[in-house]
């Protein structure tokens, strides 16, 4: 068994936020300890109302080498942005 505790990614939902946001990572021996450590490391300044933790090894990430194929094609597709509709002035918050 490795002597290092596994790494966990921490996601915090803030007071007014709707979604959990990635806050950082930390080491912990298991999920319960990861939640406690996340509470102590990432919510000590009143940042959050909910915590998710996930083992870093369980995160599947896109490969930086695939960046061109994955993301460059989206650059020239302005028609995918809904910016061509005239909005009535009465409609707010969009």
């Amino acid at each position, binding site marked *: 068994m490795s002597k290092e*505790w596994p790494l966990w990614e921490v996601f915090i939902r803030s007071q007014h936020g709707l979604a959990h946001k990635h806050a950082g990572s930390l080491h912990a021996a298991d999920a319960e300890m990861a939640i406690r450590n996340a509470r*102590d490391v990432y919510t000590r300044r009143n940042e959050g109302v909910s915590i998710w933790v996930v083992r870093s090894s369980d995160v599947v990430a896109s490969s930086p080498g695939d960046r061109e194929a994955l993301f460059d094609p989206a650059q020239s597709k302005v028609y995918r942005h809904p910016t061509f509709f005239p909005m009535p002035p009465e409609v707010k918050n969009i």
Partner: protein
Amino acid sequence: MTSDAALLDYLLRLADNGLVLAQRLGEWVGKGPVIEEDIASTNVGLDLLGQARLWYAYAGEVEARIKGTGRDEDVFAFRRDAHEFRNLLLVEQPNGHYGDTIARGFLFDQWHVLLLRALAGSTDDRVAAIAAKAAKEATYHAERSADWVVRLGDGTGLSHERMQQAIDGLWMYTGEMFAVDAGEEALAAAGIAADARALKDPWDAAVGAVLAEATLERPADGWMQSGGRTGRHSEHLGHLLATMQFLPRAYPDAKW
């Protein structure tokens, strides 16, 4: 002893427990076994320091009712010598290894949370308000230290052995938590203070359950140390205060 004099003494006991344990936990800053623990135990220390400030502020007001003027938190913390401190002997015990620190915190936290919950129903509004706020923090402290007692007690052979030694070594400081003197008895009768004797059974049950889960043996209640709450301390407190009070003693009224 007037009731205000007894209340002042009682508030200083509460405040000094927090301040002294906070100072002990502060000694771990930068030296914790892992950075996450370093931050977590410092958080606990800062919670306790915050509670101590609230108790000192009220103690100063009560002192002003008695004498006309009351000391402020800095005077209470930095201008009193060891015999004037009223904290439990348990909280001034040295940090030792991390298991010792966890064991000390665990025995204290389990008592502290019971005490604060009882004080939240105090007939003194200020005591009740401070206790209600502090009880939430103490609840987390108690969960955290109990979790570590289980992890270390039910961990490896070595961690089990060290945790058992830590609990055994500190047990003689636990009796003082449930002792009641005349002043406290009068305050408890008036509903201001909690009757510490009534905390013994629930504390035994809570501590016993955690120790059982941690595969640790509960030590027998033998001879108990006492004296902290009347100012008779172990030599450790003097060393702790020498460090804590050095700067304001060497440079009186220095500004940050």
